[in-house]
């Protein structure tokens, strides 16, 4: 029953309520509901084309759902203006993707400091914060290296540092180790999980890889645009 449900966003860091999203005539989400608690690491699994990346983009305010709602700690996100959502993405969210998120012409330190500089943090402070992340991720000697010269594993560690440097409330990671070999991917994932736990950051981790999802506290499945909970019943039906 709808009336028995808690207030939107109550107790959760981020929540989607019955969102739908279509691209032309193709439905990607058909009434997806989910929530992640503060500090929770949540894996979003599902086959290719199931809608899991679309769900992440809706949660992060990159896409606006056609219907339904998205909430961040009780604040409705999907009805905010473009400017407000852009600001929220800069200040409250961090992002790690599989490819192409770093500026190859800039150095490692530049890339990590970038979110802070975009948030109008003073240059000296931004670079000091960036420098703190280098040894934590095993990048201590790479601060002045251009990111186009890095290995895949190094680049993903830089991307992780950049996603965390502004202390986001939610980290969105879409197949963050998808382009890495098993051992390098595990190392990056351990660093991601460790950094998130240390800072109490909620993580929404999209992956088709069960070994990656096993690093999360909990997993949900997206199938045909709907979210399936752990017991196999649609979340919507359970409610």
């Amino acid at each position, binding site marked *: 029953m709808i009336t028995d449900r808690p207030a939107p966003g109550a107790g959760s860091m981020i929540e989607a309520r019955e969102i739908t999203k279509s691209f032309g005539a193709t439905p990607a989400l058909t009434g997806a509901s989910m929530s992640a608690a503060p500090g929770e690491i949540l894996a979003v699994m599902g086959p290719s084309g199931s809608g899991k990346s679309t769900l992440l983009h809706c949660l992060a305010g990159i896409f606006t759902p056609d219907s339904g709602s998205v909430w961040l700690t009780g604040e409705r996100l999907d009805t905010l203006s473009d400017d407000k959502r852009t600001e929220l993405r800069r200040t409250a969210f961090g992002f790690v993707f599989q490819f192409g998120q770093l500026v190859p012409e800039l150095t490692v330190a530049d890339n990590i400091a970038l979110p802070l500089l975009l948030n109008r943090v003073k240059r000296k402070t931004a670079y000091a914060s960036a420098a703190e992340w280098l040894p934590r991720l095993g990048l201590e000697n790479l601060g002045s290296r251009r990111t186009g010269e890095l290995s895949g594993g190094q680049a993903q560690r830089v991307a992780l540092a950049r996603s965390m440097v502004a202390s986001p409330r939610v980290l969105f990671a879409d197949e963050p180790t998808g382009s890495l070999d098993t051992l390098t991917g595990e190392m990056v994932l351990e660093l991601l999980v460790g950094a998130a736990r240390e800072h109490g950051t909620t993580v929404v981790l999209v992956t088709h890889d*069960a*070994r990656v*999802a*096993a690093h999360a506290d909990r997993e949900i*499945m997206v199938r045909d645009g709907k979210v399936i909970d752990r017991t*196999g019943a649609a979340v919507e039906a359970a409610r």
Partner: protein
Amino acid sequence: MSVPLTLLGLLQREPSHGYDLKRDYDEYFGRGKPLPFGQVYATLSRLARDGKVSGGDAEPGAGPDRKRYAITELGAREVDTWLAEPIEPEPHQQTLLFSKVVLALMLDRPAEDYLDAQRAKHMQRMRQLTEVKRSGGLLDALLADHSLFHLEADLRWIDVTAARLSALAEMVRTS
């Protein structure tokens, strides 16, 4: 795990007493399931009977656990053959889960829900093993990895089966 061949392998490093063999076995291979002393000595007796180990003289005043065992040439050849031989891949066609899925479809039960529940169970175990890797040593991590890769293979099978359920259902109901 083949206990006789593993004990033979340990003896191939150097001659050893039964007590030390048990200690090494438990440390490297026991993983929470120690080998009973009785099984150690029974296995060593059989290996000695078959000419794969030689039991040297017992040390004066000591019981059977002070007898020093050494691997024979026959035993060493058996260990080498065993190590070099690939393990037979498990036949997955007749697993319990396969039987359950087919039966569920035959009986018009919610096979997809069963598969989801099995996936959740697998994921729960994979989280436990991931924690073992995080908190344990390298040996624990290697063993956990072995289990994780096998569970991952099962999960892939579950996903592929879930995607083929409609076709499978049609087949089992019409055949």
